[in-house]
């Protein structure tokens, strides 16, 4: 990964797409190489110095406790599953009423994917396009009965590119990130007028650099809840363009950070039109030497009146050596808007701990209860009850002090 040009030389013949695509890949790589891996000098990457983080010999990182590697499992929901092993789709895409699925590799080879749109990519997305091995191109029309789940597995470096177009209806997507290696993923989502998309993302392992770009048309809604419960490096950047009146965006993150985990939740919300709403939150629980980052940017365009944009980041620090950076950024060019941001950082509440213990609950269980309770807020944004219960159980099993059964679902 570090020597991208050399890596590209060895793999480009195996990458999908004809000569035209190859030209575009070379151009993207050249542009990406010019700037190199982002460092602190790139404002967008100020708190996540990729050049440094990816240079760290992963063998030097102490392994996370065994249970941290436990992957999230949504099988109980019977989702339409697409598994990417080391960056390549396993098996043929499956079918579902109202859903058209094509592999990204296929779409590139057949020339059906308009990759010209990808040429303007910057930093990590340019690397991503240059190296993209596979992904999924989804078109959704109507509300599928089942959730669509993208699972990432394997130990090798992987570059994935997904494009989702929701023409109508309501759809639930799950990104289940369990790969142990380095993954660079780009997910483009286009939400048509009146359509609704909910994305649950759970990262339990590996180094994941993800960029989600969303375009919301009138009265369209996009909600994402990202849980990072394991892994070494997590960068989840979400860019949302609220393009049509009545559009609504929800961007919620939760970090359960232990060991040397570095987890970065970056969001850019562009309110391009009047009467658009957004809510961005992060709840981070940081132990050991874990690092949490919240970068939230809200831009309200001129004449985009009656915009409601709220931002909140909260961190619970369980160790003196844990670290949290929070950077809210508001750029407002309209005058009749309601925008606010807040950041809070604290320790586990000693008074609350005593209150619970005075009722007979031992210290470990009381701590578990308070931490789970803190993370109940992001869980509450998962509307689907069954899915919420699955994530709650996953989180409860990863919170220190629990009995490991994940029985304590508080919401």
């Amino acid at each position: 990964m570090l020597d991208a040009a050399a890596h590209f030389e060895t793999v480009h013949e195996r990458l999908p797409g004809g000569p035209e695509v190859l030209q575009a890949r070379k151009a993207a790589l050249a542009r990406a190489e010019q700037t190199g891996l982002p460092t602190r000098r790139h404002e967008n990457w100020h708190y996540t110095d990729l050049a440094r983080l990816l240079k760290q010999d992963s063998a030097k990182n102490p392994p996370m406790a065994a249970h941290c590697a436990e992957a999230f499992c949504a099988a109980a929901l019977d989702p339409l599953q697409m598994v990417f092993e080391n960056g390549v789709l396993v098996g043929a895409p499956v079918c579902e009423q109202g859903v058209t699925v094509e592999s990204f590799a296929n779409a590139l080879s057949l020339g059906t994917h308009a990759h010209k749109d990808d040429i303007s990519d910057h930093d990590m997305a340019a690397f991503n396009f240059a190296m993209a091995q596979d992904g999924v191109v989804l078109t959704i029309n109507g509300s599928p009965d089942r959730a669509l789940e993208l699972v990432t597995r394997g130990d090798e470096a992987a570059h994935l590119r997904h494009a989702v177009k929701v023409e109508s209806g309501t759809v639930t997507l799950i990104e289940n990130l369990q790969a142990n290696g380095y993954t660079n993923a780009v997910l483009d989502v286009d939400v048509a007028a009146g359509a609704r998309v909910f994305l649950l993302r759970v990262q339990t392992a590996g180094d994941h650099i993800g960029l989600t770009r969303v375009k919301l048309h009138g009265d369209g809604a996009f909600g994402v809840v990202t849980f990072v419960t394991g892994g070494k490096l997590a960068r989840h950047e979400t860019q949302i363009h609220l393009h049509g009146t009545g559009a609504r965006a929800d961007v919620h993150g939760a970090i359960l950070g232990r060991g040397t985990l570095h987890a970065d939740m970056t969001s850019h919300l562009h309110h391009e039109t009047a009467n658009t709403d957004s809510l961005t939150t992060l709840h981070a629980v940081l132990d050991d030497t874990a690092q949490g980052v919240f970068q939230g940017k809200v831009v309200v365009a001129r004449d985009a009146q009656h915009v409601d944009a709220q931002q909140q980041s909260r961190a619970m620090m369980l160790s003196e050596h844990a670290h949290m950076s929070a950077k809210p950024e508001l750029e407002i060019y309209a005058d009749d808007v309601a925008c606010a941001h807040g950041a809070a950082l604290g320790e586990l509440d000693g008074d609350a701990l005593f209150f619970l213990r005075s009722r007979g609950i031992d210290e470990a269980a009381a701590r578990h209860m308070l931490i789970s309770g803190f993370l109940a807020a992001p869980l509450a944004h998962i509307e689907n009850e069954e899915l919420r219960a699955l994530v709650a159980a996953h989180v409860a099993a990863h919170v220190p002090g629990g009995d490991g059964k994940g029985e304590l679902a508080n919401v």
Partner: protein
Amino acid sequence: MALLEIENLHAGVDDKTILNGFDLKIEAGEVHAIMGPNGSGKSTLSYVLAGRDGYTAQTGTARFDGADLLDMEPEARAIAGLFLAFQYPLEIPGVTNMTFLRTALNAVRRGRGEDEMDPASFLRMVREKSRAMGIDDDMLKRPLNVGFSGGEKKRNEVLQMAVLEPRLAILDETDSGLDIDALQTVADGVNAMRNDARGMLVITHYQRLLDFIKPDFVHVMVHGRIVRSGGPELAEELERSGYGTYIGAETSGQGDDAGVAHA
């Protein structure tokens, strides 16, 4: 053996001594009231007995059913049967009242070597006890104390007491912030739990609560110790005369010992 026996207890927060030679003996079945002016150490006493972090005893003893109470973790005290109704109950976001009650009850039962209560029996029991406290299903499903009014929080404290069935209940200013109707409900809940086996320690600034919960004994606490003890009539006398005479007497009689001493 007395249920609670405190002898010559000196205790405080960090290096401040607040309890200054405190003595008290409560037998099973008795209801004691401690009254005193602000700053007399009433809440400190409740925190020292419940085991709050930072509230430590310097000398003296507190024995609960013969065991050294001061040596026990807060949860062990609860398992042994001590319950503190908080003056300011804590809000716990994300943990429903019901989950909290079930976790607490099962923790206490496990600690006492009993089986956990099965979910159906638990639900039946909690519903019945909630009804008596005017707590509806919605309040049981909400996060613990979050957004509860002052009265709701206090009623919820008494519900916890009813669920955990302690052997000794300490009520710390349970009347504060309650209107007359809420006070009646809370008092009814407490009175329903009075029996020959259970002791109660009612801590209050005003006599009003004692019109509703009739104590067997009343103690006046000033500067970290009990300066006078008597029957229920003592509360009425205090209501008429105030604490002034006690504060004055204590100050002139004890010299340097008055107020908060530094160890």
